[in-house]
């Protein structure tokens, strides 16, 4: 039982939906359909590397070979996750934080179908428990994927969570970005990007950011700013690539 006011104390879940047997069955049936549909649509997209004319598969598998903290802006969640799920070997090394609510069940099942590890937790409702879960995942050899401006924004403003996780776990942050040639934007806080089928999507991987284990507040802030700058710079590089 969590003590009132303890480090682990969190806000209660907002969802009023219950985990009924019917809903569980529905989600189990829907997860493979969503997974197949997303992969089919994704396969029609042409992925290009921002710095070359190819999708550069080797750069991705090499960058993700060792545990790290891959980070991208929340608005780029759909194309970046699809890109990371593209190769099974890479997908199996990744971990995702998914809400423990009933709403998160479906998303968790889709990710698990791709071979990824799922940590159930909420950075806004039980932040420390979620971070400890991700720290444990790194110890097990997974790379936890983080959207540093998520889950509620402000848009393209990195919070320090990814930097502190990188510091305590002793693994680098890996900035990732993308830009689609054509997309639909969801009416959400971040105007989530959903690439259109048969379009081009440019991707870029940045320089790993190392956060010293004994980093003080100023060094953590410096790494946070560096992450923000890299993510914005990489996104611009991807946009420029699509104009060529």
């Amino acid at each position, binding site marked *: 039982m969590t003590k009132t006011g303890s*480090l682990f*104390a969190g806000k209660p879940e907002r969802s009023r939906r219950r985990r009924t047997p019917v809903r569980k069955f529905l989600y189990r049936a829907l997860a493979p359909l969503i997974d197949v549909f997303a992969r089919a649509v994704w396969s029609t997209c042409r992925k290009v590397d921002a710095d070359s004319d190819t999708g550069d598969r080797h750069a991705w598998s090499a960058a993700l070979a060792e545990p790290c903290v891959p980070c991208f802006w929340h608005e780029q969640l759909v194309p970046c996750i699809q890109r990371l799920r593209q190769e099974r070997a890479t997908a199996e090394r990744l971990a995702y934080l998914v809400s423990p609510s009933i709403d998160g069940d479906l998303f968790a099942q889709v990710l698990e179908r791709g071979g990824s590890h799922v940590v159930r937790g909420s950075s806004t409702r039980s932040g420390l*428990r979620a971070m400890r879960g991700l720290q444990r995942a790194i110890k097990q050899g997974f790379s936890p994927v983080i959207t540093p401006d998520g889950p509620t924004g402000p848009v393209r403003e990195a919070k320090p969570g990814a930097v*502190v996780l990188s510091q305590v776990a002793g693994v680098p942050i890996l900035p990732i970005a993308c830009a689609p040639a054509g997309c639909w934007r969801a009416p959400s806080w971040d105007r989530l990007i959903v690439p259109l089928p048969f379009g081009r999507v440019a991707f870029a991987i940045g320089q790993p950011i190392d956060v010293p284990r004994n980093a003080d507040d100023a060094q953590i802030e410096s790494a946070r700013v560096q992450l923000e700058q890299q993510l914005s710079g990489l996104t611009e590089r991807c946009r420029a690539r699509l104009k060529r």
Partner: protein
Amino acid sequence: MDQVEARRGKLLDLLTEISGVERTKLEPTMNLIADVGLDSAKALRLLAEIEEEFSIEIEDEDAERMSTVGDLLDYVESLA
């Protein structure tokens, strides 16, 4: 007894370093979130530093019981 005092001292040093609250102002009754100002990122750093300093692994069930500076002091004392 000396070992217990040393552990308490080291814990208060870590808490001061991470929270920025002067050691002389830390009281056992202070709440770690409301009074000391720990957010989830600082709490993660604190737990990681305690684990490294005392070569232990803190279980989530133990961390769930920590709400005040006194709870933390009791925990590291129990390690002796």
